[in-house]
């Protein structure tokens, strides 16, 4: 288990992120893993070299709130997950609509567990 780990509801992603921003945390990274049925989204925030890790489990059917309105530097990673997992982030400050890395005629959602 990750240190400083908190599990949250998907609906709380944006509000929790705003709290971290208010407390002076920087957005360090974001991870997504397809577990077969769901997607684990893990947000890593840093303050004074200490990481806090927030995790929300989503089913991928509903759009997820983009945190790029709070941390603009998150726009690339959220676009990456749109490409690689087929997730949809709503409110992205720059939205490549699934074509950050992949071309329209290229492979789709290559990071899903059933894709080899």
């Amino acid at each position, binding site marked *: 288990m990750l240190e400083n780990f908190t599990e949250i509801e998907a609906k709380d992603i944006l509000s929790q992120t705003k709290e971290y921003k208010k407390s002076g945390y920087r957005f*360090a990274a974001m991870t997504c*893993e397809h577990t077969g049925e769901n997607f684990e989204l893990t947000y890593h925030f840093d303050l004074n070299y200490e990481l806090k890790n927030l995790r929300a489990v989503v089913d991928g059917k509903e759009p997820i709130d983009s945190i790029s309105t709070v941390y603009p530097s998150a726009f690339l990673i959220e676009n990456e997950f749109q490409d690689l997992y087929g997730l949809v982030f709503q409110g992205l400050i720059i939205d490549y609509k699934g074509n950050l890395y992949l071309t329209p005629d290229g492979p789709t959602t290559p*990071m899903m567990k059933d894709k080899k």
Partner: protein
Amino acid sequence: MAKTVIPFGPQHPVLPEPIQLKLVMEDEKVVEAIPAIGYVHRGLEKLAELKDFQQTVYIVERVCGICSFMHSMAYTQGIEKVMNIQIPERAEYLRTIWAEVGRIQSHLLWLGLLADAFGFESLFMETWKYREKVLDLMEMTTGNRVIISANKVGGTTKDLTPEHLKAILTTMDELTVLLKEVDKVFLQDYTVKKRTVGVGILTKADAEELCSVGPVARASGVKYDLRTTGYSAYKHLDFEPIIESAGDCYARTVIRIKDLHQSIQLIRQAVGQIPNGEIFVPFKGFPNGEVVSRIEQPRGEAVYYMKANGTKNLSRLKIRTPTFTNIPSLLKMLPGSDLPDVPVLVLTIDPCISCTER
């Protein structure tokens, strides 16, 4: 005034790797920049899920051709943490020495590219000539010039003999003298300063807002250097993060030049203190658990997230490289700049696109 969109890249003389910036221009001024990437996405994170966790060392070494060693360092450090492996102290020093040698060759490569970007060919050639000495050192100590394959889970694959350590110190002495020549030009030459001073300013507030890392952040006054957390042998070495405050192209150049001298000092300290002993500790089993491993690469903080489930394969490896997080800072620097300054400005974040796309 009508706006024009100019595509900068993906193929451009100053870009060693492909990235496109769609520059929205008003006359000769940039008013907006939108990046387009995806030219070198290789799916390495997916490949890592399909390979044995020890084979993955060779995959992460190929995330980047410049900071190859440090990618494997971040990865092995993470796996060792999740498996509770304490590597020998000598291996920690070896990793630190090779990491700093790698930082020197990376910064020298960048200085040459910068000189090339503003058309100073002789400065470019001179800087890369010095870099050759460092690459020769890497070849002598490991057998390879760039991808040195010196890391494995549990320690290092190679040791440094007393002759190697002596040669490293000799090269550091030579570099100290040689660098004085190019330092003078990069920091005092009228033409160079004309192209860098006051160009592409990123304020401290913007650097913090955009979560900048590495020399880009430190040139804007953000004191953030992961080496101060004391991973590997850095906990035994005496140094302070190098900070500048102007946030312009010149400050980003100053940071890297001072970084070079600091790396030389760190190598001298590490070579002076390296203990005798083993370079590898044997272990059994497979990793199980989650971990985040971070290190300070030449371009800034790299974040490695690993999730293992007790089998030989990781269920997830996520790599967040420094350029990935510095692209938003570049988009902030570009508006307001003149078109001829764009190449120099783009280079000052030291973009590594292979790292970014993996």
